[in-house]
């Protein structure tokens, strides 16, 4: 008996759930990259750089959805402010890219970004220093969102703000940041944000190879994040998190400091969002306060809801599907997009509480039970 349980309790943490996803993801990525780089542009199988960047963007969103799902699907904390962490990560990367422009900016000022020059700034604000170092910027891209999440979580979870209140607070948080980043005094380029990037760690952002490799890196990161998250969530830590979701008070009564668990999970999720943001910016070529807008954050939640919360794969699927739909819709009949999105919100919450993946598993269940019946008959 004990052997079984032994195997069982370890078996779940093995990669056998994550492998299929990782393999498919990386395979697709590899094919896309190769066909873009080595197939002639006119061949049927050629993947244009346009679609590569598009895919790259989707993958960033997928990672973001993953972050939302971890905190919402697994711990029941609905954060309407994850856009903030995403954007902060993006800004860190943006600042780095900005510094990389150097004297190739319109004003040819070696250390001041253009917008500072024509706002008449004399020297670099303190928080821009060091941002010209890639490693430093990347640390910031992870640290700042993490820190914000920690402070917010520390305040919120320890005073047991939960449920809807928390959601509204997170929304207020991102809203406040939105207003703040719109201010030009903040030194983040105000409404225009940061754009006109030239190159990243020495590679020109305009070359196909850079774009492709950015895309590849994104895919890789997504895979890594996916595996890590899966392992964390299927460790005992993960079980505690589920316990918190289902009955927080019970979890406390068997001796878990649930607030700490929530804080750290929140931080982890925020960090993922930050990474996603950092990968997003060089691919779309601009970061601006719009990313903070509450609507965005809510849209992320709907990706997860559509895909199926509480399952990592669901979050990814949801993000990819919804965004693909968005791209198509806005191209075909833009006016209808908001109707579609809104309808999606309502229908999913009403009829697909477990999302697509949930539906799928339900169907599987049904089929299995049927087959069982048949075999019995």
């Amino acid at each position: 008996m004990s052997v079984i349980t032994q195997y069982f309790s370890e078996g779940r943490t093995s990669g056998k759930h994550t492998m299929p996803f990782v393999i498919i993801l990386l395979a697709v990525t590899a094919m896309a990259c190769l066909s873009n780089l080595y197939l002639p542009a006119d061949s049927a199988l050629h993947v244009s750089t346009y679609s590569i960047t598009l895919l790259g963007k989707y993958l960033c969103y997928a990672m973001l959805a993953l972050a939302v799902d971890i905190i919402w699907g697994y711990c029941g904390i609905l954060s309407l402010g994850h856009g903030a962490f995403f954007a902060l990560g993006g800004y860190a990367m943006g600042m780095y890219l900005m510094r990389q422009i150097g004297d190739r900016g319109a004003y040819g000022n070696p250390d001041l970004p253009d917008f500072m020059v024509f706002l008449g700034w004399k020297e670099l604000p303190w928080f821009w220093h060091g941002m010209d170092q890639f490693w430093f910027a990347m640390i910031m891209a992870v640290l700042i969102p993490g820190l914000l999440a920690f402070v917010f979580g520390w305040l919120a979870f320890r005073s047991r703000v939960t449920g809807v209140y928390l959601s509204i607070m997170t929304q207020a948080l991102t809203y406040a940041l939105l207003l703040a980043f719109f201010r030009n005094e903040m030194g983040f380029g105000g409404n225009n944000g940061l754009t006109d990037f030239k190159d990243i760690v020495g590679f020109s952002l305009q070359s196909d190879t850079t774009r492709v490799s950015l895309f590849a890196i994104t895919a890789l990161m997504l895979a890594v994040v996916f595996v890590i998250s899966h392992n964390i969530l299927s460790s005992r830590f993960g079980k505690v998190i589920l316990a918190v979701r289902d009955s927080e008070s019970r979890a406390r009564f068997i001796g878990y400091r649930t607030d700490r668990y929530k804080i750290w999970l929140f931080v982890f999720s925020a960090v993922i969002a930050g990474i996603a943001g950092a990968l997003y910016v060089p691919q779309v070529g601009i970061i601006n306060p719009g990313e903070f807008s509450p609507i965005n954050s809510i849209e992320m939640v709907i990706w997860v809801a559509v895909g199926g919360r509480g399952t990592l794969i669901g979050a990814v699927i949801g993000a990819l599907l919804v965004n693909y739909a968005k791209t198509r819709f806005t191209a075909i009949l833009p006016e209808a997009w908001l109707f579609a999105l809104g309808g999606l919100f309502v229908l999913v919450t009403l009829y697909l509480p477990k999302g697509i993946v949930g539906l799928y598993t339900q169907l599987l269940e049904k089929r299995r039970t049927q087959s069982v019946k048949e075999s019995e008959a």
Partner: protein
Amino acid sequence: MNAIQHTVESLRHTFRPDQVWPFLAPENAKVNVDKDIILYVEGLNLSFDGFKALNNLNLYINDGELRCLIGANGAGKTTLMDVITGKTQCDSGSVFFGQNQNLLNKDEAEIAQLGIGRKFQKPTVFEEQTVFDNLELSLKTDKGVLATLFSRLTPTQIDRIDDVLKIIGLAKHRFMLAGALSHGQKQWLEIGMLLVSDPRLLLIDEPVAGMTPDETERTAELLTSLAGDRTVIVVEHDMEFVRSIARTVTVLHQGSVLAEGTMDQIQSNKDVIEVYLGEQEEGATS
């Protein structure tokens, strides 16, 4: 004004000669039960806007005894447990676990980690997780974030879980989702969760509600067997059950202790008769 009192109070508390300062005291010092009393509840008061749920309640539980709390609805039984386990803050009074652990300045988690286990009136288990996981979560281990992150089940732990599974008779439902269990089974699972965490003090709220007679019997055996190396406090309406297990019984009434003693003494006690046994049927059916 209030603040001043409070600070004075805390100052006095800080400089009490009979105890070392918390930061000097060894980490989670063992519960001190030289006076073999494990729970001191003194002058406990608590009111929900006007309604006095606890009214200057005093209660002492000996180490290793099995104590039954009875009382009409609203007598304050559950509220008392809430205060002890840190769910509710009381207005005034003191609750000590052993002689050295002041429970009032600890939160639920700390209290639980001290070895006070609780079973709720209506069974609460983690429905989305398997029976096994439920037990694994309640194992007596380091419950810090990092620890849980990297913890693996040791064979001994697994054996422990298996034993408990046998005791509570859920061995073959090991990998069933707890949500799918029957009401009675959930009761058992919850008791099991208490067992694996082997606590010093068990607070058990209406364990047999919704159990079949023989289940009830098994529960009774289990609880009596537990008493001795553990201390058990049972809240129960079912008089039969109480009589079958009780050595000492405490009757609560309107938030304070009405009477205490063996079942027979209680039943012969006349204020008890008038305030409680009169309502027994009603109580028993609730």
